[in-house]
């Protein structure tokens, strides 16, 4: 699954650690999600959408 997490984060000038703190997850979690190596759980995906004030499908794009 692709995602726009890095783009949304850099728009706000947040570091990966800043974003992790806001979501209550480690920096490594943010790195793995941004690189597309890890798909977050539904609660974390919702928390990400809520934090960036957008829908989950605006952040995460399923790949065929």
């Amino acid at each position, binding site marked *: 699954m692709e995602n726009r997490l890095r783009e949304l984060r850099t728009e706000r000038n947040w570091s990966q*650690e800043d974003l*992790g*703190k806001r979501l*209550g*997850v*480690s*920096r*490594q*979690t943010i*790195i*793995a*999600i941004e*690189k597309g*190596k*890890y798909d*977050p*759980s539904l609660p*974390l995906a919702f928390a990400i959408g809520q934090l960036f004030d957008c829908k989950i499908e605006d952040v995460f794009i399923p790949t065929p």
Partner: protein
Amino acid sequence: MSIARLFCWDDVSKVWVKRYLIEFGAAMLGYTIVLPLSIIAIQRYDLGIWRAPIGLSPAVPLAFAVWAYARSVSLMDEFTKHIHTRSIVFAAAVTLIASVTISFFGNAGLPPLHFYVWPIMVGSWGVALGYNTFKYR
């Protein structure tokens, strides 16, 4: 580069890492005290019915060490938990395969199996954890 940075121990991770190091450290300290005392007591004194409980007493701090790890896993964030779970599953699989294989070789006169289980389990867990940690950096 600090050790905390090397292992990605940010402020969120430090919460469980600090707690784990304290609890696990205390358990291992207890083990290093109880084990020699237990061995000395068994070798020097006639303990009667207390022989078995005192002989098994080093298992108590070890159980606390396992509890400390299990508790730290419950405090981890979802991705860290994912990495640790993968590593434990890998270690369990390696230990299973190695144990069965060594059992087969036991007939050829190799030392008893219990010599191998602990280092294989901990070693393969450590390798898997290191690999998974650095893979996702």
